[in-house]
């Protein structure tokens, strides 16, 4: 089953992404290609690490996060475009200065054996993106707050709050994010950031 899914995925991406770079003299935009490849690109996870600790032991766990942005409000949109965007976020309106809500489903690759947290978590929060260089296209930073929904089988807790910061490059498409959680068992996490639109 999984092989079939992988083959279909690969075929779709290859057909609708690479082929248009050939010699075809067609400059009309391709909405189906756009939205299908965008959806597939959203499946690319952002890898990271997250701490797993108890009173006696500590280690870091490998994690994968997916970046979902339900809402972004730009502070620097021009008069021809909307400053408010949902899910598919134009990079220029984001990195030139904006505020956004985010959702990050997250999975760690093995169990939190010291802290007792569930492998699956859902980070939700809001952040502000501030341009630093080339109006944010070369470098932008972010600061935000978040709440992570993640069950703890040892303590019975359902989650914890945290603060997040980030630095982004190349149109804000790539970046690094750091989180300090207000929970002694999951104190820090750091991850790459990848989101295409």
């Amino acid at each position, binding site marked *: 089953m*999984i092989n079939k899914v*992988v083959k279909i*995925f*690969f075929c779709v*991406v*290859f057909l*609708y*992404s*690479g082929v*248009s*770079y050939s*010699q*075809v*003299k*067609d*400059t*009309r*935009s*391709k909405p189906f*290609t*756009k939205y299908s*490849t965008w959806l*597939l*690109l959203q*499946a*690319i*996870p952002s890898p990271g690490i997250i701490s797993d600790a108890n009173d006696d032991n500590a280690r870091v766990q*490998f994690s994968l996060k997916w970046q979902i942005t339900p809402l972004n409000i730009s502070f*620097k*949109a*021009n*008069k*021809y*475009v909307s400053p408010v965007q949902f899910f598919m976020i*134009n*990079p*220029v*309106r984001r990195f*030139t200065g904006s505020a956004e809500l985010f959702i990050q489903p997250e999975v760690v*690759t093995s169990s939190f054996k010291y802290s007792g947290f569930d492998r699956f978590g859902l980070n939700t929060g809001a952040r502000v993106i501030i341009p630093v*260089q*080339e*109006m944010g*296209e*070369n470098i932008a930073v972010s600061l935000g707050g978040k709440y992570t929904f993640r069950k703890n089988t040892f303590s019975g807790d359902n989650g914890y709050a945290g603060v997040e910061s980030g630095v982004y*490059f*190349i*149109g804000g*498409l790539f970046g690094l994010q750091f989180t300090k959680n207000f929970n002694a068992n999951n104190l820090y996490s750091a991850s790459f950031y990848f989101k*295409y*639109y």
Partner: protein
Amino acid sequence: MTLKTIKIIAYIFFSVLFSSCGYLNIMLNNVGDSISSNPVKVDKVDNPVKDSVKISALWVGHSTTLVQIYDKVLFFDPFFNKRFGGLLMRQYEPGLDPEKLSKLDYIFISHPHMDHLSFSTIDYFADRFPKAKLVFPEGVENYMPGFDLEMIRLENYDSQHGDFVGKSVVIDGMKVTPVYALHSGGRYAIDVYSWLEQGATGYVLEYKDAVVYYAGDTGYRSDAFKKIGDTFNIDLAIIPVGPCRNCDSSSFWHHTTSFETLKLFQDVKAKYMIPVHYGAARYMSDPNRPLDIMMQILEDPDKGFSDLRGRVKVLGVGEQIVFN
């Protein structure tokens, strides 16, 4: 993590890699230069704005050209950054000290690619010349922040998908017509090559008795350029040459090859032509190769371009030419 999960991630990664291979190829070819080198210094004119001129053109480098038509001063695709896209080092520094510019009326953007649209450059000129007009085609608005000058979006659907010559508008006394360019919009690799986002144009500017054509970035399409040549009596055409692999024939559709640049010049029937879009960025090989091959073709009597000799004006970076 299971082996199958790793396989899935690898497939996704390489699929994205393939779809943006052109962009990555350029970056990988230039990693060394971009880290270790600096742009070559060039001589710059002290007073680029002339008191009395019909048309003047100063090549700043790559496609950036400062043009004066009588009392109107304008930029095509101003780009003064040290690096393209924050990564790709330019070969020569810009051939104009922007502080020496005493007047600017218009900034024309042909399309939003990284080597043609610089946010910090426009921001700089917006601070210095807040009354200048920023003109761009439909689609580019998606790749521009709000600048503190008047932003004017031109409808160019007709010129891109219909008659090759779009609807003219008059901006501060200058007639501006968007014309066909075989190119795409977008800015971040996949939206350029795969999504084919809209947002590319050429421009014909008419002011008093002077007509200037800027082709933007374009591939070659004979019927389109012949239509432009039949519609306007062009004095000066600014036409890109390359990048190209098979420069002496027709090939890469996004950009005119050396051969196609001359064909385009013939089609638009301009009096003079200035080649641009070479020299500053090393896309695939020697950045001057497209120009060198174009000049070889021009000099070859068997190639059919003898009538263009003497009308092709090759400028050095920072060099200014005056047509009266």
